């Protein structure tokens, strides 16, 4: 669709200021990053040409491959878990139109607007030795299970992941609740007249009706899972050991701690490519209606 309106050259003048800032401080760094990713460079001395060597290392190096693997695990916590839980819950609630939705929506969405630094401080306490989780375990007589969750080699990654679940689940619920209100009630009534049970109703009415919302939720949460530098840096700094290192953290780590700037840029560009690809795939799958 072409924009409405008559041809007007003055349009360029209106777009120009925004485009200049955008080109200089977003497009240019992106291109510059792609260029730097083709060099071995420590940030100080002269770099040497690497071709796609940094990308090969990003995939081949066991530690970095591990970080992508961690990102995949976090994807389950940030995207799959919140979307599935919220979807099932909202489906169960789909027949009722509860009052007070504004209140619930406001509260459920709240974690999305709190600065990640504050979220990290809160959860560090929750996971700490004397925090509520260990406290509950002791109270339940399971004192043997207590631990410093974020410092535990096995549990650090799922613990960070659960923070992601907490942040994203409200977003998914708010989206689905809005979507389900738009499904005509007649569809549910018709399904019941046809003798459809709760399961049939889910697949015949709710799922098709929420396709679009599902796509939006998956896109937003997936992107959040890949852009999670803040949470990792603030809660574990990738530790203990490499247990919670993710690509978003490695971009920073490889630049400022190990002086592998080219490699860091290659990881950054790889994250961008994955974000583009996932967004495209999700949109394609959802729009290719059966």
């Amino acid at each position, binding site marked *: 669709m072409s924009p409405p309106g008559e041809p007007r050259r003055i349009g360029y003048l*209106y777009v120009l200021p925004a485009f200049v800032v955008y080109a*200089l*401080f977003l497009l240019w760094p992106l291109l510059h990053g792609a260029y730097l990713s083709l060099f071995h460079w420590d940030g100080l001395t002269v770099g040497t040409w690497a071709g796609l060597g940094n990308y090969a290392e990003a995939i081949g190096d066991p530690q970095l491959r591990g970080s992508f693997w961690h990102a995949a695990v976090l994807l389950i916590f940030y995207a799959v878990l919140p979307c599935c839980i919220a979807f099932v819950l909202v489906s169960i609630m789909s027949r009722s139109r509860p009052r007070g939705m504004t209140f619930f929506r406001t509260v*459920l969405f709240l974690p999305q607007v709190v*600065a990640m630094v504050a979220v990290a401080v809160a959860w560090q306490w929750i996971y700490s030795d004397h925090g509520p989780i260990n406290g509950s375990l002791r109270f339940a007589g399971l004192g043997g299970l207590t631990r410093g969750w974020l410092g535990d080699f096995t549990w650090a990654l799922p613990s960070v992941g659960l923070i992601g679940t907490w942040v994203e689940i409200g977003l998914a619920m708010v989206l689905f609740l809005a979507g389900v209100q738009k499904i005509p009630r007649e569809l549910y009534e018709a399904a019941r007249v046809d003798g459809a049970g709760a399961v049939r109703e889910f697949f015949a009415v709710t799922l098709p009706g929420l396709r679009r919302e599902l796509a939006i939720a998956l896109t937003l949460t997936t992107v959040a899972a890949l852009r999670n530098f803040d949470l990792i840096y603030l809660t574990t700094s990738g530790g203990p050991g490499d247990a919670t290192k993710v690509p978003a953290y490695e971009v920073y780590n490889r*630049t400022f701690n190990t002086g592998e700037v080219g490699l860091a840029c290659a990881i950054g560009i790889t994250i961008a490519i994955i974000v583009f690809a996932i967004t495209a795939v999700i949109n394609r799958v959802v729009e290719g209606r059966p």
Partner: protein
Amino acid sequence: MTSRAERLGTYGVLSLFAVIAVFPLLAVAAQAFGLPHLSFGAFTEAWRRGHFARYLTNSLIVVTVVVIVASVLSILAGYALGTMEFRGATTLFYVFLAGLMVPTEAIVIPLYFDLRSVGLDNTLPGLMLPQIAQSVSFGVFWMRAYFRSAPRSLIEASRIDGASSWTTLRRVLVPVGRPAILTMVVLIAMWTWNEFLLALVIINSSEDLRTAPLGLSIFQGQHQTEYQLLMAGALIVATPVVLVYVFLQRHFIAGMLSGAIKE
């Protein structure tokens, strides 16, 4: 018809998740205030030792400039891309739109070296400009959608009256578009206020220029297990956005969920 049991179940589920959503935040507030013995000692202590007066001021300056500049640029560009026809308009729009998907992680390292080479690292403008660029990407997307949805009759009537494109924008479309503009403003303000990675990398040595989230992370490093102090600091940093959110939640939710919607 919904049964009583169904309705109760619905409220049960909603309440449970509402509690889960607020529990960590209420726990922060409770500890910061030293409940049940209400005291503000932790606040004054955190305020002083964390230099939050300084850092909140910096954040306020950055947010104000980014919001004003990004909003004006977005309105101008969105107006042209939404109501005028010129060669490359669609392509330009998609170029702006692509920026919505570029993660900060992909640009922050080259930005660091670029800004350093022109002496903009450890300066507030160096921190503002990339955030204006990111905001413009959303702003153009958002304002173009508004200008496209604005009634054509409004624009045509104004034009028949002999108004220039500029007068049409200023006298007709901006006043009518206040709700859309407000949504854009609160979102850009929130994103800018909460931004951490750019601040961490760009303000890497000038302690006086730290933003509130960056200041809190440094404060956290210095007071690892003094939870009451940390919680007070967290509350100081998070509260401004939460307050605005409580009053304008509709704008926040509508805007944040729109980012993933393509035409």
